């Protein structure tokens, strides 16, 4: 801000659909989304500013350290109900998911679940933080959150034998990756363009890296 006097950036939360909607209606110059645009939103201009890994998380004491994509899909669809079927103790799996409409859930649905439905008996939470909180406290639970938000209180499991990490995403070995988008209705206005340029600049991308996300440009 100090380098750009006269500009003000107002940030409003509300989720991916709200961000896209705001850009569409002109309420915001730039809308942000953590999921891909749907077909009826494709008329908007999209710029990928960062990427984010989705981590499958379990309690740190859970002996299960790795799962296959099919196993994850079956756990979240409610077909696998006990940890004993995936190499853990004989204990019921508590599935934690995000609410309908969330970008994280949308990305998870698309990349992991495909056409199958999420388990209706799954616990639903409305933020990455609360999902992490539940998984950190319940030894029998499993959830998914943004990789940047994984901390020591939960364990991110390996997927298909690949550990979810910054390097593995950059090397494209870890596949659960979603884009973070800026969307604008038509070409961005001068002030918005300046902001987008900043985010895509070396400095902006460095900030993104520091937040635990994956920059789109590599040095």
């Amino acid at each position, binding site marked *: 801000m100090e380098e750009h006097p006269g500009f003000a950036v107002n940030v409003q939360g509300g989720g991916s*659909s*709200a961000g896209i909607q705001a850009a569409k209606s002109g309420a915001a110059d730039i809308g942000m989304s953590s999921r891909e645009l749907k077909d009826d939103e494709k008329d908007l201009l999209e710029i990928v500013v960062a990427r984010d890994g989705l981590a499958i998380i379990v309690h740190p004491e859970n002996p299960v350290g790795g799962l296959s994509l099919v196993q994850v899909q079956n756990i979240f669809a409610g077909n696998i109900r006990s940890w004993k079927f995936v190499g853990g103790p004989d204990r019921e799996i*508590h599935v934690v998911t995000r609410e*309908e409409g969330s970008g994280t859930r949308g990305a998870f649905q698309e990349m992991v679940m495909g056409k199958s439905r999420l388990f209706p*008996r799954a616990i639903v939470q*409305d933020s990455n933080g*609360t999902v992490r909180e539940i998984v950190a406290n319940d030894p029998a639970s499993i959830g998914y959150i943004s990789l940047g938000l994984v901390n020591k209180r939960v364990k991110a499991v390996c997927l298909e034998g690949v550990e979810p990490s910054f390097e593995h995403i950059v090397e494209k070995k870890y596949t659960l990756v979603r884009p973070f988008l800026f969307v604008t209705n038509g070409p961005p206005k001068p002030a918005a363009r300046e902001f987008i340029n900043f985010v895509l600049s070396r400095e902006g991308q460095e900030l993104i890296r520091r937040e635990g996300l994956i920059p789109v440009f590599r040095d």
Partner: protein
Amino acid sequence: MTRLEKRESLIRIALLVVAFSAISVLLVITVFIFEEGIPIMVKYGFKRFLFNLDWYPSEKSYGLLPMVIGSIMVTFGALAIGVPFGLACAVFLTEFSSKRLRRIIKPMIELLAGIPSVVYGFMGVVILVPFIRETLGGPGLSVLASSIILGIMILPTIISISVDSLEAVPSAYREGSIALGATRWQTTRMVMFPAARSGIIASIILGMGRAIGETMAVIMIAGNAIAIPRSLLDPVRTLTSNIALEMAYASGEHRQALFATGVILFVIIMILNTIANITSKRRKI
């Protein structure tokens, strides 16, 4: 008209306007919810909302049955906990405690009503949920946890209105009963309760209203699963949490379906209130 009369009628009109503005807010809310929620219900048919188990807005499936049952379970669970405790407390305060003790305890109970619901939810998450998970099993986020927390949340409503209505019973009733040789408990059970019945029922209705409408605390401790709970230890989603959870991200038909959720909630509350009003009137002495 004298000046005094003029002033009087002016005040009358001013008060009338104020009274109606309160009602008009209710009217605006009602019209708004129905206007937003009814079109989608008409489009897909009422049945697909109320008698359908699948809530998958992304697939245009809007079954609200699990949430209707969830709301009812949690509300009656809260009453099952709040009513006995609340009434026992009210009876103790009016019939068995000294005036001095009452003067200390009653304001403390009323203070409970001032605690924000998010704090109750937080206490539930930090203390009650882990306790249930470790002692009774399941994920802890459950019908039971929500019922207990809501039961505590409705205590001040039930206690303070019941105390007021028990206190409003003329003391001649109590004195007469005791003079006839009845014990304190007999007097309470057979004289005071029937005399204060309408007030006590009103307190339960208000408590029920608070329980069914509570959102924040329930979102935090109910688990919000979209399935009819098979036991008290299963997670549950209420109608209010359905709206609050998904409103932020909803657009288009999904958003309208959340308003439809509001319509159903509205109707359920109306039905419960009417039933409660009828029963409280019929039993009045």
